[in-house]
């Protein structure tokens, strides 16, 4: 069995949070799907609420606290990312966006990302494709084809709605698992380890 790392970014603001609930469902389904592909998954969860002050401070001061730095490194070093946000005013929350604003450039380039969102009604569901998908396209991530949206009604016990959510979760998880299992483990380059030699900089490279 090989090993891969999954980073789960949950932007829920309440505790308990339906966003976290959806993130956990997606995580469990992805771990299962990876196991079917003979891959052992290590899961790291980043609850953005815990970093709300540090995220604002990072915007203002330009550096991350040790705790936020650890969270950023977790996401930047992951083989796959599950990103879940509540939908506020037609898009992801400001807190969710701030986290991806302060990540190092290129931190998610080429990284498989499963996007998911929660909201009070299904009228917000296209925010997945109008807001989250373009954000991760900009970050040059590989966004899995199925985005998972869960409105309040989807959490009802039984019935078609609950069944449909479960099947969307499984489909998206299988797609993420296939991408994660199919790529070699990520190696994150340390910019302070191997500088561009100065002769090359002088020639206009670097």
């Amino acid at each position, binding site marked *: 069995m090989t090993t891969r790392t999954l980073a789960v970014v949950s932007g829920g603001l309440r505790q308990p949070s339906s966003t976290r609930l959806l993130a956990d469902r997606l995580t469990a389904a992805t771990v299962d799907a990876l196991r079917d592909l003979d891959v052992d998954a290590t899961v790291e969860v980043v609850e953005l609420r815990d970093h709300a*002050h540090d995220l*604002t*401070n990072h915007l*203002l*001061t*330009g*550096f991350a*606290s*040790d705790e936020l730095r650890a969270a950023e490194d977790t996401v930047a070093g992951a083989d796959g990312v599950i990103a879940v946000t509540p939908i506020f005013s037609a898009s992801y929350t400001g807190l969710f966006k701030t986290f991806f604003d302060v990540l190092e450039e290129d931190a998610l380039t080429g990284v498989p990302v499963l996007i998911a969102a929660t909201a009070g009604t299904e009228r917000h569901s296209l925010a997945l494709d109008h807001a989250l998908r373009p954000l991760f396209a900009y970050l040059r991530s590989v966004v899995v084809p199925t985005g998972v949206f869960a409105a309040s009604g989807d959490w009802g016990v039984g019935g078609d709605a609950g069944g449909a959510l479960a099947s969307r979760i499984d489909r998206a998880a299988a797609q993420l698992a296939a991408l994660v299992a199919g790529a070699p483990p990520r190696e994150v380059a340390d*910019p*302070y*380890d191997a*500088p*561009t*030699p*100065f*002769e090359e*900089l*002088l020639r*206009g490279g*670097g």
Partner: protein
Amino acid sequence: MQFGIFSVGDVTPDPTTGRTPTEAERIQAMVTIACKAEEVGLDVFATGEHHNPPFVPSSPTTMLGFIAARTERIVLSTATTLITTNDPVKIAEDYAMLQHLAGGRVDLMMGRGNTGPVYPWFGQDIRNGLQLAIENYALLHRLWREDVVDWEGRFRTPLQSFTATPRPLDGVPPFVWHGSIRTPEIAEQAAYYGDGFFHNNIFWPMSHTKQLVQLYRNRFAHYGHGGADQAIVGLGGQVFMRPNSQDAVREFRPYFDVAPVYGHGPSLEEFTEQTPLTVGSPQQVIERYAGMRDAVGDYQRQLFLMDHAGLPLPTVLEQLEILGGEVVPALRKELATGRPAHVPDAPTHASLLAEAQAGAIDVLDPATSGGTR
């Protein structure tokens, strides 16, 4: 080990009174602060260079020349000189002139400047910032070392048979530091030339500073200038002191809370934990700064930011009395302990002249062999 102060030259309202100093007051205050720095026994005064409000020091050599005439011992420097938007020809001339007038008490710290609109005001583009820093400095380096320069590059008009005047004092160019907060390429540049590397860590955790300084040290050794522990390293610092640490916190907090850069962000307690900012008793400052070398190794220059965020001039002068009177003498003693004999001091005009006379400086410089011509 050199200790000094660096000033951004910001015109900031005093949040406790709401009063904003005039430009005239701020400029005179900078001169008073520089003279005070010499009086209390500090080694270096460095001024920033800015071309936008709320900052006053747009013309560093004018200010430093004036200060040079009023002081006798202190080294005059910059923090930073904009190697990107200034013409390297004019830097070569201005600072050579200053060097003559100040009797060699001059060095410079190169920086790129991070304010986008400033670049086009000087005909440049911030997207070329790094390449400007590399090309312009390569030219500046030659202008101070070769009497007649033929040169062609990407960013300025070519030079044919050009001699920058005056020639550097005693034929010894001013020592140069390269300042950068997060750019490995600048650490690489400093290492390549065997110049100094200054990490202005005042807004950064030491874990970050350590990475960049270590890169510079390794590359300094790689380029054959000496051992990694012989590279020339400078750090920034920021302190506010009162005999009773609670008084220091109480007095500084209103300035901290609304200060440019970090105001309205982290708490004073968080920021002092995460960065070198130390607000407390002189003894606390001594202990904190005596420990900096644990992260970066024995280093050569420690500059403190003392006059910012709207602190009134009398307060800044009191702070300098404490810094020069209590803190720096204790730090000099502390940092001399256990410092290996082969770790050099920061180069000065006298030390560079002595080296040149002893033939220790290569006449043929590596920068001229493969550079932009």
